[in-house]
């Protein structure tokens, strides 16, 4: 009995520490506020409908993947559905989808893996009616993590496909 209680409190402690690690990680990305290789650096605040801020804050510019997977989870599909609706409404933006991998893979493989993730998001958006001519992809492999730490809380944030509006080459 007492063992069960301590096991349960251990579990709570573990959950808490993951929450802390994520909070610590999420401070890291995009302090410079530039576009590309991760997304926009945004503070809280109002966003004009149709603006880049609107897209990032109210739609969500990124989807996440399981380890070594390129499959779109139901959460990822829901985000991409919202992206497709928004992108159909605001047709002025060209779109670059960046594919990224976490650090637990070799460099060359991760370029290919990132390319596959970007392609998965691109195909999904195209199937939802976004013209392929608006969509390009780029893979950064493991070169541009947004979260920097040595555990699962960071790795899961780095395995991502980010939809960047008016990205490079636009």
């Amino acid at each position: 009995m007492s063992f069960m209680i301590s096991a349960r409190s251990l579990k709570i402690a573990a959950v808490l520490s993951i929450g802390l690690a994520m909070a610590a990680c999420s401070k890291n990305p995009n302090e410079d506020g530039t576009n590309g290789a991760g997304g926009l650096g945004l503070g809280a605040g109002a966003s004009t409908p149709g603006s880049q801020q609107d897209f990032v804050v109210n739609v969500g510019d990124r989807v996440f993947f399981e380890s070594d997977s390129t499959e779109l989870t139901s959460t990822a599909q829901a985000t991409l559905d919202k992206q497709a609706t928004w992108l159909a409404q605001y047709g002025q933006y060209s779109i670059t989808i960046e594919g990224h991998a976490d650090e637990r893979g070799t460099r060359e493989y991760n370029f290919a893996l990132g390319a596959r993730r970007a392609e998965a998001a691109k195909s999904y958006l195209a199937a939802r009616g976004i013209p392929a001519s608006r969509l390009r992809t780029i893979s950064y492999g493991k070169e541009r993590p947004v979260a920097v730490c040595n555990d699962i809380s960071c790795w899961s944030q780095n395995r991502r496909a980010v939809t960047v509006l008016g990205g490079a080459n636009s």
Partner: protein
Amino acid sequence: MSETKLLLSRRQAAGLLTGGLLGAGLMPGSAFAQSKYLDVRRGSNFQPVPIAVTNFAGDQGPALSGIITNNFARSVFLQPLEPRSFPEQISNPDAPPRADAWRMINAQFVVTGRVARGADGRMQTQFRLWDVSTGQQVTGQQYVTDPNNARRVAHIVSDAIFSRITGEKGFFDSRVVFIDETGPKERRIKKLSIMDQDGSNVRNLTQGDDLVVTPRFSPSSQDVAYMSFGKGEPRVFILNIETGQREVVGNFPGMTFSPRFSPDGQKIIMSLSQGSASNLFTMDLRSRATTRLTDTAGIDTSPSYSPDGTQVVFESDRGGTQQVYVMNAGGGGAKRISYSEGARYSTPVWSPKGDFIAFTRQKGGSFGIGVMKPDGSGERIITDGYHNEGPTWAPNGLYVMFFRDPGGGGGPKIFMADVFGRGEFQVPTQNYGSDPAWGPLLS
């Protein structure tokens, strides 16, 4: 013949002249001289050869001896003895050392030498290698050079001694291209750089404006192939490190990455990403003709030629996970060679001697560097842990370099180890370093 000429003239271009053998005192085939003193191919159970590198005479002598000693310390097969233990000061480098005294500290060889400045201002370096057991000189040589090439002379002397004792080619007079890394991990600045194999003479070849990765040396020229992120699609480029001239390799409809030269230097083999697949292609650097080698829906990457150019080793996830395959150089006949239970294999690279393929192995969250025979047998892990990656071979096929990144906010450093994993040494670089690629022997 023509190759020998070319190499000679390159060495002369660098201001190095071989003065020939120094008063060898031994006829070829003499009963005292062995063809080699340590068989490095026999296996991991060798006894390193104890060698005493005495201070060369002349103002620059001790510095030269220091470079040679440092080289031997990382050679694993040779074991330089502590100068404090030396039984005598060498006053005349041309005279035999007192063999009985050197035997007392278990030295098997003694190196003596001198560095002098000739009337023309050129540096004259002489060395002699003495076998303590016979008291005889086993080799000796003189080099005349511009004083700016002092470090290279030390490496050439190191190679001459290493070769005389092991019967193998040297590797000290060689350079390594790598990626110099600075800045925080999420905005890492990467520069294509080059250094001597011992970490000295670091020079940046790009200035960090573009993200660059995976440089590879040409076996026959001053060219480096690498992947660069510029304004558009990430692509494979070739940079001539002497002229600074840069060109894109081919006009492919997608990201090209993971380049490597063919053994004759005439072709680049690389991956092309199209849709969700990555396949292998070659481009002939003279005709610009491109050839598709694989056609899978999977990820084929990290190709590397066998030294005779007839086969290619690469990694593919066509069977579900990353594994190592060997196929014909023209494509086709791919055969999986990596089979360890629960392991993934990547970044295979064929040894310049042809006897081994080095690789990265992922198993249970650990990243090891290992070697196996080209048929997949005889696997040996040289180092393991989190996170080793990307081996490259020394020009004599007896050592690998790789990088190790502990993860988190830190960064990678470059290491070298012998093929048996007996010794491992960090290659000292000021900044973080990754993606080392060892170039050919210079002389």
